[in-house]
């Protein structure tokens, strides 16, 4: 096992795949000459040259569309958004073209493309630079959505995403790029899309969290341990297709569930998970499904308000105690 930063694990996946397949190229703002805004692509331009690691103008709609055209023509692009907040100007390319043209062309065209970049809140960046997009993208059939919480999953799942023949939305985190973690040394390390990970086992409550929320879930589980309760923490890893079996099996064991999701709450990923749980395991529930999300407002700028706005471990802990009827 090697200990890598999250950015190094992502780079390792890109390099292994680009070495393996010449049709793969990386494109985005500052990915080449500047070695990446977050240094994910450090050294890659030197290694592959500017035909395979390509700097673009500040025009997300343009280079997302360029990537889709290349994918239709048989290449396998990886498109980096400096953050997913900027991808809103490429929404038409991703939603109307990437997600739908395979369906509309009766399977004549497919898009082996990955859109990747940091997602969600990253401190005092204010309303327009703090959006969590997993709920938005996962509601469109035709897109796969992955959201990673650690270097090992980042490497194994990005390799799967690049090899997938359909468009994949790959969500990283600005806050976590420097996070270190063990990464498997296995030759050609692949984690299949659509499999959740049970991060810790327990029977008191099921906590579901992905990306940064996964860490809030783990911290809350630690707090519950000091109260004498073992929580089961599940990192879904893939948002769509979602691994319902793992979640439902766990809820049938614990009889209660707390969902942690940095998205805004209304019509969101947590709404869908709660719906599926009550629908698939109604008779096993001892308490209403609870969720901890960002507040239902645009993200604030002030530091104290940012802390209030985002899900905290304390919030998750309190929600768990509520569904366990402890308070």
């Amino acid at each position, binding site marked *: 096992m090697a200990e890598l930063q999250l950015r190094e694990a992502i780079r390792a996946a890109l390099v292994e795949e680009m070495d393996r397949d010449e049709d793969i190229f990386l494109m985005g703002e500052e990915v080449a000459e500047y070695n990446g805004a977050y240094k994910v692509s450090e050294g890659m331009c030197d290694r592959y040259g500017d035909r395979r690691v390509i700097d673009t103008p500040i025009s997300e709609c343009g280079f997302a569309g360029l990537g889709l055209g290349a994918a239709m023509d048989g290449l396998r692009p990886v498109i980096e958004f400096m953050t997913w907040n900027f991808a809103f100007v490429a929404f038409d390319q991703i939603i109307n073209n990437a997600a739908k043209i395979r369906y509309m062309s009766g399977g004549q065209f497919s898009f082996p493309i990955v859109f990747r970049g940091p997602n969600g809140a990253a401190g005092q960046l204010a309303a327009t630079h703090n959006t969590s997009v997993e709920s938005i993208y996962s509601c469109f059939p035709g897109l796969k959505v992955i959201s990673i919480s650690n270097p090992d999953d980042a490497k194994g799942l990005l390799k799967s995403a690049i090899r997938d023949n359909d468009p994949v939305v790959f969500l990283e985190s600005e806050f976590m790029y420097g996070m270190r973690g063990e990464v498997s040394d296995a030759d050609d390390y692949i984690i299949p899309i659509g499999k959740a990970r049970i991060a810790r086992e327990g029977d008191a409550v099921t906590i579901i969290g992905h990306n940064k929320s996964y860490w809030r879930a783990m911290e809350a589980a630690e707090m519950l341990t000091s109260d004498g309760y073992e929580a089961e923490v599940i990192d879904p890893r893939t948002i769509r297709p979602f691994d319902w079996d793992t979640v439902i099996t766990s809820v049938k064991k614990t*009889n209660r569930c707390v969902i942690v999701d940095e998205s805004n709450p209304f019509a969101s990923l947590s709404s869908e998970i709660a719906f599926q749980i009550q629908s698939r395991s*109604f*008779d*096993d*529930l*001892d*308490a209403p499904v609870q969720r901890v999300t960002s507040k239902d407002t645009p993200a604030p700028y002030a530091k104290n308000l940012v802390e209030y706005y985002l899900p905290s471990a304390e919030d998750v802990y309190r929600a768990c105690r509520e569904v366990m*009827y402890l308070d």
Partner: protein
Amino acid sequence: MPIAIEMPKMTDTMEEGVLVEWSVEEGDSIAAGDVIAQVETDKATMDVEAYDDGVLLKKVANAGDALPIGGLIAIIGDAGEDITDFIEDFKSNGTMSPAPSESSSEVSVKSSPDQTPTLPEDEPSSHGRTKASPLARRMATEFGLKLNHLTGSGPSGRIIKRDIEAEIERTPQIGHAPLPVPTSADRGHERVRISQMRKTIARRLAESKFTSPHFYLNVDVDVVALDMQRRGVNQYLEKTNGLKVSFNDFITKACASALVMHPDVNVTYASQEGEIHKYNYVDVGIAVAIDDGLVTPVIRDAHLKSVVMISQEVQSLASRARDKQLDVSEMEGSTFTTSNLGMFGIESFTAIINPPNACILAIGAIRDTPVVEDGKIVPGKRMKLTLSCDHRAVDGAVGARFMSTLKDLLENPASLLL
């Protein structure tokens, strides 16, 4: 002027009612239409509503009291009014006895879906509905616990998993624990109050069995064709609308068709009027076992309905019967009744006629059995039907002809789809 509130006649067969629970207190102001109490009759628990405005001066009956129809429940009037003379008058006029006149009835009734006569202090939730998590409900069913006997520790008294677990812990005989072996010291018997429903069953069936001379007719029906027909119909229904019909639905339809052809069986022996009533319609009562007894919801005009229509109606009636949600009117006025114990493996049995019917059909299990065909023993499928007839109205040959037609119809089931 004080006004008496008397035990109302809430169903055709009711003779007395048990006051289950008061909804108002002495001194409360009540308006016409207010529910003042709940009364358990032979068929359901119902709300008693006041017809007049006034103040509740006195509760004459207590919770748990059984009163005959016309018995004094309560008195309403103006606040502070003296009612001593009124009670004396009421007693001496003898109106405490059954059969009140129309004008003395000061209440109206409304059927309510309430089930068990629990006293108010036993009710853990504020609106009579027991709150419990879905898991707690499932566990209560599995362990045979009554939720309204438990106290919930969740928010607003919600019964949750740990309340059920505590109850199981407290009463070790629940669930999978072995029953304690009784010693001579704790031998005894439990005394269970006879419910109004059981009193009604006892009275009506004793009256039927001891008054109407029963005789019984047996046939063994070949159901190979019916079985195939049912499978075919169900395959089609499953594909088209997800429905499923039972053997019993076909039998109900066959009874209705046969009764149209044999109107002498579709009768009532009305001894008091000195008449036999022959019906030009077929309303089939179907005996449904429920928790503490049985009821017979009625399929109206079964002769005019298809097997699928009958099936849907039976399912709806039976499930509402089990939830005690049936209205009294849905259980009255049958012209013929069927009772099926086949699902328990009962091969054949004799049923007691359900008054005022003249006949009841007892349906046994469908069984695989060797039969002789053309001198050879081959596998067959048979079902025994037993008709109980009131000999005062139906003679042997009349009943036998009906049974012969019924057997014919069931053995040629395509006729039932016509």
